[in-house]
């Protein structure tokens, strides 16, 4: 078994420093977070409050009519615990006209529309709140492409994107997040009864072990099989990593000129700050 244990105290310090610095150097002091009721957004939210102060964080609860009441309730638990301001905005009235225009729309399409509507509401609220949108995607889902491009993956900065799901849970333990949030089955809650692990077909515990060997430790797929992972599972995961690279990249720009944005016009975002 690979050891994915992290020094949670150290990671907490690094990530609060990261949030504080990256928001302030952009000329802001506030942040907006979509609180889903799950552990990822809970962790990002606690870190943001530590980095910026409770008065500088706005939590959004953005339910759709089929969303689980537990999601709302768990988000509220955290809002009350952190004493941060929040807004609850139903996205049903925004999403339904589009869904109803196309009868028999697939769950995937409906889910993507909801994720992107939450992005629109989040960015709109961030303008009103004069803050930046904090992302809540973890390393497992980013690598597996288990995100909606320009939906839940859209953000100004992401403090937890280099932590596997099981490491986010470790960090949650350090951050005094209610155990009901840490222990429940992860779900995008885009339709009733949906769970991440049900949809992906494997558990986070298992896939994090494999991803850690493949990505962090640079094991070859055949070495992972030799470590005891089923070949079909290794293939499924490696093909997902490759297939969803587009979700992790900016759109390619066709090169015409002698200097092209993205290929030879190269600056860090933090240029000048």
């Amino acid at each position, binding site marked *: 078994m690979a*050891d994915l*244990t*992290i020094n949670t105290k150290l990671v907490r310090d*690094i990530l609060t420093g990261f949030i504080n610095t990256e928001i302030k150097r952009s000329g802001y002091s506030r942040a907006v977070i979509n609180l889903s009721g799950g552990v990822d957004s809970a962790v990002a939210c606690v870190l943001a409050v530590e980095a910026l102060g409770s008065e500088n964080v706005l939590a959004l609860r953005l339910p759709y009519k089929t969303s689980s009441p537990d999601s709302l309730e768990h988000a509220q638990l955290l809002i009350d615990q952190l004493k941060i301001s929040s807004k609850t905005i139903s996205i049903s009235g925004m999403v339904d006209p589009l869904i109803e225009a196309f009868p028999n729309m697939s769950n995937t399409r409906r889910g993507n529309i909801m994720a992107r509507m939450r992005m629109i509401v989040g960015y709109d609220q961030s303008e009103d709140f004069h803050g930046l949108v904090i992302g809540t995607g973890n390393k497992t889902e980013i690598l597996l492409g288990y995100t909606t491009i320009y939906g839940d993956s859209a953000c100004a900065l992401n403090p937890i994107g280099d932590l596997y799901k099981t490491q986010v849970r470790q960090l949650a333990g350090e951050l005094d997040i209610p155990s009901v949030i840490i222990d429940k089955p992860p779900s995008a809650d885009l339709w009733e009864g949906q769970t991440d692990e049900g949809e992906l077909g494997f558990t986070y515990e298992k896939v994090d072990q494999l991803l850690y060997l493949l990505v962090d430790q640079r094991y070859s797929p055949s070495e992972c099989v030799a470590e005891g992972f089923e070949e079909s599972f290794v293939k499924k995961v490696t093909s997902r990593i490759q297939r969803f690279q587009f979700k992790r990249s900016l759109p390619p720009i066709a090169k015409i000129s002698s200097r092209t944005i993205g290929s030879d016009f190269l600056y*860090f975002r*933090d*240029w000048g*700050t």
Partner: protein
Amino acid sequence: MSIKIALAQINTVLGDLQKNLTRHLELAAEAESNKAGIVVFPELSLTGYSLQDIVPDVAIKPSIDDPLFAKLLQASKGIDLMIGFVEKDARHRYFISAGYLSGGEIVHIHRKVYLASYGIFDEKRFLAAGDSFRAFDTKFGRFGMLICEDFWHISSPYLLWLDGADYFLLQSSSPGRGVTDKQIGSADWVENINRSYAGLFTSFFAHANRVGFEDGLTFWGGATLYDPDGKLITKGPYYEEALTYAQIEPAKLRRTRIRLPLLRDERPDITLRELERMRKHG
């Protein structure tokens, strides 16, 4: 005579020479007022690390004629400075350089030889490599300077040691990575080699690493000074700006080298002969 050294683990503004210069002058003045003889800044302390296409815009020809460099030379009349900057030559090549300034003069410039170009690093794409390791004399003794990836190659401190360096000043912009259940992997690695070098070369090893963030990179600080026994004399905090002071006791060189005469017994002639044999026979 004891030497008080100040290790300046600063944050930088990416590509803003003036703001970084101001920080250097503030900390040099602070270190001077605290009676330090030397202040060591991190790699690329005048520019920030992740420069990419900014490189030509922040490059300096180090001389009294450069208004920015002139201010540093002025400051060096009160305290010796080791700084990090992008150096340009007359033919438009750009180097990652370390400068040692003292008494208003440039005492030595070291151009980074080993440019890190793998993983998160991409230095070779934007910068030219130096081609020498030279020790140099200061009012405190004979020094050697190395920049980050330079000291991952064991031949670099070895050559400086044979060239007479007793005091090694190392500067880095080392991003934190490989966090485990214990500490930052990259801090662990750097501290291990600094401690090992101090013991193996029976010399003083000072290291200043920057702090702050550049996009997702997180620089960990943690300045250190090890003595010729490999003993940790001082350590700066992780991830915070700090000016960390330590006393260098040159007498320790004598005591350690009597106990452990590695320098006396070193056989560079064998090294050279064997290297020449390998070169000749492939």
